[in-house]
């Protein structure tokens, strides 16, 4: 309970008292990307995103290696729900399509008066291409509007030769 007496305020919270949604983390992420890009160049920014994908998305990658796309569908439904962001997700056994009218990251960065890092789209392209590596699936960013982050992403099962 918050207690307010003149000149003294106390606030106590448990983790369960709030939902976890700190949109300004998009701004911090952009600062991190810009730092890597401006200090070390685009290639190293891509290498950083590969390192991140290999570390963070390992459980998802393991699921994709088993040939099952359903975990990836649930993953995207979950993160967009947590972001409270409108999106169209079409998931079938062999493909997954994600269409958005704007990117939550780019939107927040711009709302705060900042400019998205050059090659911001690599947070989509590099991350999900890497995720699909050595799996039965491939990723395509069919279009990406650099201004808004409106895009269409497709994961599809690779054709057998």
């Amino acid at each position, binding site marked *: 309970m918050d207690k307010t007496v003149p*000149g*003294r*305020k*106390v*606030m*106590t*919270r*448990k*983790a*369960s*008292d*709030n*939902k*976890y*949604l*700190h*949109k*300004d*983390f*998009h*701004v*911090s*992420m952009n*600062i*991190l990307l810009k*730092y*890597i890009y401006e*200090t*070390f160049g685009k290639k*190293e920014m891509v*290498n*950083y995103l590969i*390192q*991140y994908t290999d*570390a*963070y998305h*390992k*459980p998802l990658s393991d699921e994709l290696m088993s040939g099952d796309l359903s975990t990836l569908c649930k993953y995207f439904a979950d*993160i967009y729900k*947590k*972001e409270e962001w409108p999106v169209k997700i079409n998931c079938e056994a062999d493909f997954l399509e994600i269409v958005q009218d704007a*990117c*939550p*990251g780019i939107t*927040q960065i711009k709302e705060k008066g900042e400019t998205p890092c050059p090659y911001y789209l690599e*947070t*989509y392209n590099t*991350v999900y291409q890497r995720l699909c590596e050595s799996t039965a699936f491939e990723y395509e960013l069919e279009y990406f509007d650099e201004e808004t982050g409106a895009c269409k992403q497709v994961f599809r099962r690779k054709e057998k030769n």
Partner: protein
Amino acid sequence: MISCTEFIPAYSEGFKFIESMGGREELEKFWSELSDSYLKNSLQKLIEEEGLAGCYTYWSHSLNEEAADFTMILDEGQGEFSIEMHKCPSKGMLLQMKHMNPHHAYCDHCPALYKPIVEKQGLTYEHEIDCDNASCSIRIKQPKK
């Protein structure tokens, strides 16, 4: 997309990456730039406008959005603001992720970000961190007149 809910692991890997490229010195340079650019229009501005109470305003917003487990006290009579972080949401998340190892000095970024901003406003900043248990305490004080 890297969701804002996935930022913490991305941040931790970012620390590892920058350190691998240029050592601790490069990482501290990044933290310094992050402090300047991210906190200038938020924490710094609030302290300029509200004094010590600006700390309460700033962390009321961020700690609630980050779903932290904390007790925060502003005592303007004593000229002191404190946070007891019972469970840091960032380090807590990293400790829960068994498939990832957090950056070895992940918790060092907090004082690196906040201390320079607070001291620039003529306040003192003290901290104690128990990184293995995702807990810490921060005390920010007005100098005695």
